[in-house]
């Protein structure tokens, strides 16, 4: 699913340098990425998603050479192939839960909002246990409910890859496990690949594979 070779990326103003000689993730794997703050975990997600471009090296996701395509191409690729789940949920308070889930469909021409998509959004919300909250404003939900809505938003376009940036970081212990279960269930159901950045070592045994960012200093993490 993901293949990275000889990647170099830097923020010259911060003196930040990221080097990944080789890194790959097979289809369907649930991978956890751990490492100290500032080591570049979120930057890795941004590189894979095409939000930022590498200085040198190759990134291939689902057969798409992300490092080669144009900005517009990367945006279309991102919104159709990748589902992003953020630590702070990043829902828009002024939209209802349903509108938040459908939001990716309203901001790009790459996705078509059809009645079937709207129906799928409702079904997804039912599965996630927020089917009765669809008309409420996102700001009125609990933390757990917000993250469920954010996962629905990430899964609705049926992405091949789900990137989760500390998706359980703001949740209480019970909610953490429950949300992770829901995320894993949804990933399995959609046959997607999951790459999750986390600081929570308690959750690591549940993943198929764990990559420590410190490994990159010593060589590849293939």
């Amino acid at each position, binding site marked *: 699913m993901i293949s990275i070779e000889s990647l170099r990326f830097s923020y010259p103003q911060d003196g930040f340098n990221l080097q990944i000689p080789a890194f790959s993730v097979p289809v369907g794997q649930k991978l956890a990425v751990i490492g100290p703050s500032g080591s570049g975990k979120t930057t890795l997600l941004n590189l894979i998603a095409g939000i930022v471009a590498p200085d040198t090296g190759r990134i291939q996701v689902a057969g798409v050479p992300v490092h080669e395509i144009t900005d517009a191409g990367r945006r279309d690729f*991102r919104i159709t192939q990748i589902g992003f789940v953020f630590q702070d949920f990043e829902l828009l*308070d*002024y*939209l209802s839960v349903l509108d938040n889930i459908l939001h990716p469909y*309203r*901001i*790009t*021409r790459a996705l078509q909002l059809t009645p079937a998509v709207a129906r799928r959004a409702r079904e997804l919300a039912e599965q996630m246990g927020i089917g009765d909250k669809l008309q409420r404003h996102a700001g009125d939900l609990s933390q757990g409910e917000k993250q469920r809505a954010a996962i629905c938003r990430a899964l609705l376009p049926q992405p091949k890859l789900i990137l989760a940036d500390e998706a359980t970081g703001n949740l209480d212990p019970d909610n953490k496990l429950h949300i992770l279960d829901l995320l894993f269930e949804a990933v399995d159901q959609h046959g997607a690949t999951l790459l999750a950045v986390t600081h929570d070592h308690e959750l690591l045994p549940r993943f198929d594979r764990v990559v420590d960012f410190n490994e990159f200093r010593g060589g590849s993490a293939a």
Partner: protein
Amino acid sequence: MIDSFYIAWKYLLFSKARSATLVACITLIAVLPLALEIILDESEHQLVERAEHTPLLVGARGSALDLVMNSLYFADEVPELISMLTADEITATDLAYSIPLYVRFQARGFPIVGTTLDYFDFRRLRPAAGTPFGLLGECVIGSAVARELGLKPGDSLLSSPETVFDLAGVYPLKMRVAGVLAPTHSADDLAVLVDIKTAWVIEGLVHGHEDVTRSRDGSVIIERSESNVTANAKLMQYTEITAANIDAFHLHGNPEDYPLTAVIALPHDDKAAAILRGRYQNADTSYQIVPPADVIDTLMTNIFRIRNVLDAVILFVGLATLMALVLVFALSLRLRQREIDTIFKLGCSRLTIAQLLGAEIVIIAAFSSVLCLLILSVVAHYDQQLVRALFI
């Protein structure tokens, strides 16, 4: 599909106070100069047209502007009084016709214009209902007066006392509405026209009361002799002129000395006008003769000078408000930076983000435009009343 307007609408709806403030500010910036333009245009139209149709005005020396504003637009400021003799003298010169005016009293907030039937011909006034006044105590009301007070021919209208606390003053006169004028879009729409003698009745110079020679009420009669009867204030004064008591109304003193506020002089030709003006321009007379068009021309020059100042003030206020709006918008963008970053991360282009924000501006501008049009249509609808309230 990009639903910029849907998302923008949801945001504006969610931030109601902010949206309403922005709409109000933009509306205000647009409405102020445009409404001022409408009002000033209407004021110019009203003032100039009426002034140009009034050849000459004779009144007491003093403020020519007060004289013109009172005589043509029935403004509250009453000029020094002249006498009925002035009107007779003008007619006697054979140079002009004269129409007396006595504009001093009010009825429920509308000016009572004491004049003669010639005034109707001169201003081309015609009743839309009823007839012109024919009897003492009758009035003809302007279309706006009829509309606002809900009056029609046959109804009655009470004159207002000049001062509320004048206990010894004259009783208000209950006037019968003889007719309602067709709309003229001039000051006449807001006037209560009465015969000049009725105006004098309102002042108490012409009055009617019970016949003291027949009264046997000891509490009314102070002294009675063969040739004279003296009554006290208890003597009943008539406050309405009817067929039964009209004969009891009588003048005291010489009618030539009765007051007027002005006389409209209608010269037979330009030469007559020049001669007439020459006579009254003599510094020894206590009168002045003015062509209202000249007076209004001076007034308009001053109004337009003020208009320029106002335009400049509005421009500066508008610029300051626009800058404040830009600042509000910039700050709002900063507050929403995280939201913008999120939708960018989801896969939205910078252009689409600009489109979303542009849609918000378009919606706010559209609401402001609709509000602006509504306010301007209200201003345009009531421009005559506004002009009267603001300038006349």
